């Protein structure tokens, strides 16, 4: 474990990642004497301080050189990002990746000018071991799974057939042209050209992500291009390895057996890589089931195990990109369910940070690496033809494959989509790293290949990256719009899945939906049981999830809104006078508010809304004010006390549990209060509707109801209101007397009572509590933001998934607190 963590540390601090670069040139143990300062006998290369005298201060540049330079590079890249985003005019037009390349070129020039050596280049080791994994893991972990698997067939087609097509044709065409002699003499045979074709053919995930994330094309199009760029890694790796070894053994020695081996190795590499990914994903999911007590390192597991999947498949010479992609794809569901919410956030941000950091560095180093005269060999014909061939074959390949696919696809890929797909075939750092890996001994024209690759990468990333945005808007490609997930959509979506699979069942087809249904069943029955924490299994229904998230979002924005108005506004706004006024005004059937107030009267509480209750309330106003001010004081006195109690702990972020509890409690109380007022404001809608139903059922004279709803819809506040109001009161009274009121079948209200009714509080008071504030809230919070539509049901149901609610129960003075606060709102 310690070992794993130390690797994690290694990864997380990107410093270490690049350390490998210059470490090789500098054999030292710079970790051994990291205590710095007072070590008088430095093992090897330190500053030449004399062994006899103690130096108070010594300047040891070489001691820290490598990590220092790396850190500075990262800092420069990050700062550059800040600068780029200062002005959105630039970043709106020029993709960030292109800007970074330019920056890299500039910095490379400066470095070259300074000491005439290209000491910092993108070496394959750094790229493949440290920079690429975070980017791919991020891609896999946040992969929209359903979309991905829904289009898997198409993606695989493009990734496999398309890449092979591109590689073969590019290589062959270049060789053909070479034979005509336009390129002049080159020390390269057919195999060299094929090798070059195979490394230049693959669409690059890093470049595609960087460019497409800014373009926002529709989901299907994005997933196809992006999925292709991820999955074609297996093809690239195999082709590259096969041709590399063919070149090594020499063209004339290649036998048919070797070719067959190559094809077999493709399946082994791709399926093997995928399997490794899945196995590690299962392992990771399983491990996170038990990390409850090590919360602080919980997020680490996600990174370290996924990284291990990458290294493992690299070790077995399988497709590492596939492995880490599938590790991310498969684990996301279980991991998110198992680790707690803060860890989920940590994972998300860390992953994004690492990925975006790596991406920044990759592009910057792509720029820097180009500034090195030693690698440049110019051959106009070769370079230009390469550009032409890869573009042309990409277009042809896409068109042919799309034509084939469209015969089977339900959602057709239009011409416009094909244009974007062809144009989105960006090449990037993977190609560069692969070409840099070539052995100059075996591949004589390595430098030409490197130069060409750089040009191709620059052309695609800069030129196509620059133009793809205008192209997309010019072609009016369907864009994706980012919206908040709607509960309705989730619900309908779910219903929809069931309907489709049922129709397949009925019509006797085994289709996509049928398979999905079966898989979901299997998953729920076995995998979830094994891989998910038991408590997570319970609450892990997707609909509940969305519901929960939306609730939290609403609550947060509600609080934010409150704080914008000054955090005390909530409490202050409830002055005693108003409080009393409202109480009285609601006694009468109000003209404006006829329907709701009448309906509310239908609640059992209406009966209790008598003078006794009012009296009680007025009497308690004093008390309430006291409580209130106490509460306010408490709230503001808590903090200073906390600050004096700082304590450091490596193992827990919030070590001071007692303080924490207090804070939570405050939060909970305020939250509760706020939510409560809210629910009653908003629930008016459902509630009244509900009640109407009941009235209809029970006691309303039949003829009144249609009239009533007519009025509602037409907004005619006329004579009829009086009648209705009266009849409602009548009915309400009747009901209440008979004590057979069944209008509270809104469970939210029932559960509310369950929470609130304590032996100490007479039931009518608690009823009062649920109803009266709602009216007051309506009167007193006219500013309540309009978008909190989902809040309503959250606050009450003790059985809901909602956390602050759950935690609310045990607070002893709770009923006492809610009453005054609730009414003040």
């Amino acid at each position: 474990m310690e070992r794993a963590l130390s690797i994690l540390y290694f990864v997380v601090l990107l410093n270490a990642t690049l350390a490998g670069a210059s470490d090789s040139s500098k054999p030292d143990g710079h970790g051994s004497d990291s205590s710095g300062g007072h070590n008088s006998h430095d093992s090897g290369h330190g500053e030449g301080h004399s062994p006899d005298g103690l130096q108070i201060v010594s300047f040891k540049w070489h001691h820290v050189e490598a990590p220092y330079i790396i850190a500075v590079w990262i800092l420069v890249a990050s700062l550059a990002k800040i600068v780029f985003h200062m002005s959105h005019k630039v970043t709106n037009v020029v993709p960030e990746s292109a800007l970074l390349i330019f920056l890299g070129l500039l910095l490379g020039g400066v470095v070259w000018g300074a000491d005439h050596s290209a000491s910092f280049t993108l070496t394959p080791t750094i790229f493949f071991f440290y920079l690429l994994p975070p980017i791919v893991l991020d891609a896999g972990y946040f992969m929209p799974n359903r979309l991905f698997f829904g289009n898997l067939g198409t993606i695989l087609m493009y990734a496999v057939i398309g890449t092979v097509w591109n590689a073969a044709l590019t290589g062959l065409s270049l060789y053909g042209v070479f034979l005509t002699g336009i390129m002049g003499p080159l020390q390269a045979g057919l195999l060299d050209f094929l090798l070059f074709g195979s490394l230049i053919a693959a669409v690059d995930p890093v470049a595609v992500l960087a460019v497409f994330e800014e373009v926002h094309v529709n989901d299907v199009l994005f997933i196809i291009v992006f999925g292709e760029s991820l999955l074609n890694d297996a093809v690239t790796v195999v082709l590259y390895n096969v041709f590399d070894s063919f070149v090594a053994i020499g063209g004339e020695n290649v036998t048919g057996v070797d070719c067959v081996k190559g094809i077999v190795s493709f399946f082994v590499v791709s399926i093997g890589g995928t399997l490794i990914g899945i196995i590690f994903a299962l392992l990771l999911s399983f491990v996170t089931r038990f990390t409850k007590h090590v919360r602080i390192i919980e997020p680490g597991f996600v990174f370290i195990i996924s990284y291990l999947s990458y290294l493992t498949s690299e070790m077995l010479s399988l497709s590492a990109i596939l492995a880490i992609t599938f590790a991310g794809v498969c684990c996301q569901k279980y991991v998110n369910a198992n680790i707690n919410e803060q860890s989920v956030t940590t994972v998300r941000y860390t992953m994004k940070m690492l990925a975006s950091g790596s991406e920044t560095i990759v592009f910057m180093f792509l720029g820097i690496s180009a500034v090195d005269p030693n690698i440049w060999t110019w051959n106009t014909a070769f370079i230009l033809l390469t550009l032409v061939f890869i573009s042309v074959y990409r277009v042809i390949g896409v068109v042919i494959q799309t034509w084939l696919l469209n015969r089977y696809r339900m959602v057709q890929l239009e011409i416009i989509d094909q244009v974007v797909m062809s144009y989105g075939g960006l090449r990037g750092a993977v190609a560069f790293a692969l070409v840099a890996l070539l052995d100059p001994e075996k591949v004589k024209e390595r430098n030409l290949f490197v130069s060409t690759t750089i040009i191709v990468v620059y052309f695609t990333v800069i030129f196509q990256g620059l133009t793809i945005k205008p192209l997309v808007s010019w072609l009016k490609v369907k864009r994706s719009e980012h919206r908040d997930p709607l509960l309705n959509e989730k619900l309908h979506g779910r219903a929809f899945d069931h309907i489709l699979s049922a129709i397949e069942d009925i019509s006797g087809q085994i289709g996509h939906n049928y398979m999905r249904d079966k898989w979901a069943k299997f998953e729920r029955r076995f995998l979830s049981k094994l891989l998910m924490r038991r408590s997570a299994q319970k609450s892990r229904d997707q609909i509940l999830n969305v519901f929960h998230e939306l609730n939290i979002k609403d609550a947060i924005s509600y609080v934010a809104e409150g704080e914008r108005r000054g955090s005390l506004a909530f409490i202050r706004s409830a002055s005693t006078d108003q409080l009393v006024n409202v109480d009285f005004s609601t006694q009468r059937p109000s003209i404006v508010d006829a329907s709701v107030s009448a309906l509310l009267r239908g609640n059992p509480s209406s009966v209790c809304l008598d003078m006794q209750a009012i009296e009680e309330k007025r009497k308690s106003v004093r008390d309430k004010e006291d409580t209130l001010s106490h509460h306010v004081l408490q709230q503001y006195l808590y903090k200073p006390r906390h600050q004096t109690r700082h304590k450091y702990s490596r193992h827990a972020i919030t070590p001071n549990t007692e303080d924490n509890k207090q804070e939570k409690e405050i939060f909970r109380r305020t939250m509760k209060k706020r939510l409560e007022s809210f629910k009653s404001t908003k629930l008016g809608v459902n509630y009244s509707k509900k009640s109407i139903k009941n009235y209809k059922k029970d006691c309303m004279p039949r003829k009144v109801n249609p009239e009533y709803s007519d009025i509602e819809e037409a907004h005619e506040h006329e004579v009829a209101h009086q009648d209705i109001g009266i009849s409602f009161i009548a009915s309400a009274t009747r009901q209440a007397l008979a004590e057979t009121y069944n209008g509270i079948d809104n469970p939210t209200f029932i559960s509310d009572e369950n929470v609130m009714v304590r032996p100490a509080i007479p039931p009518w008071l608690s009823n009062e509590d649920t109803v009266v504030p709602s009216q007051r809230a309506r009167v007193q919070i006219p500013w309540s933001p309009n978008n909190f539509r989902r809040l309503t049901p959250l606050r009450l149901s003790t059985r809901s998934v909602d956390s602050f609610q759950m935690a609310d129960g045990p607070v002893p003075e709770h009923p006492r607190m809610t009453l005054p606060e609730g009414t003040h709102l």
Partner: protein
Amino acid sequence: MGASHSGPDTRELRELSEKTGFSVDQIENLNRRFQQLSKNKETLRREDFDKVTDLDVNPIRAQIIEAFFDKRNYSGMQTGPVEEINFEQFLTVMSHFRPLKARMTEEQIASLRKEKLQFLFNMYDIDADGKISLEDYRHLVEDLLSRNPHLGKESASVTSIADAAMLEAVTIIKGQMEPHQVYEGMTFEDFVKIWEGIDIETKMHVRFLNVETPHFCK
């Protein structure tokens, strides 16, 4: 198995194909399936669907089956349930799940979309009053979540989810509601509005391939 039950003849096939938009192949396939379910009778009854074992675990099974026996889903303007359906009616219901054709005009797509939505709407609107009431909605949500063993059917969260969804729907349709407004239920127009963000015409389809059906129907 009488010869008369072996399926519609060519002319009928063509007519059906024109009416429902299925290809002749697909119709023959579905007819085979129909015969299988109905045990070679002219009509299908609700009990016949019990034979589809895969349906048993479907949480909204009842609504789906009911959709087949709902007059609203046939071309006529009638409403109300029927006891048994013939092949044409079966096919008509199935035709709501046809995929998009390759080249369709905007209007065709729009009308197809409307047709599909109408089907869904009818399915949700259990009491056939032209409105999806909160009651209907809760029913749906309860059914949907009923497969989650950890949530009781009557659990508060289930109902509150339905409430929240309804409230959300109302907000989409009407904007912010005045407190004294009462919402009766979603009409079809409202329903269409809610679905605006989802391109149902591309999603609501089943592949009716020429697959031989029987092996998983016991």
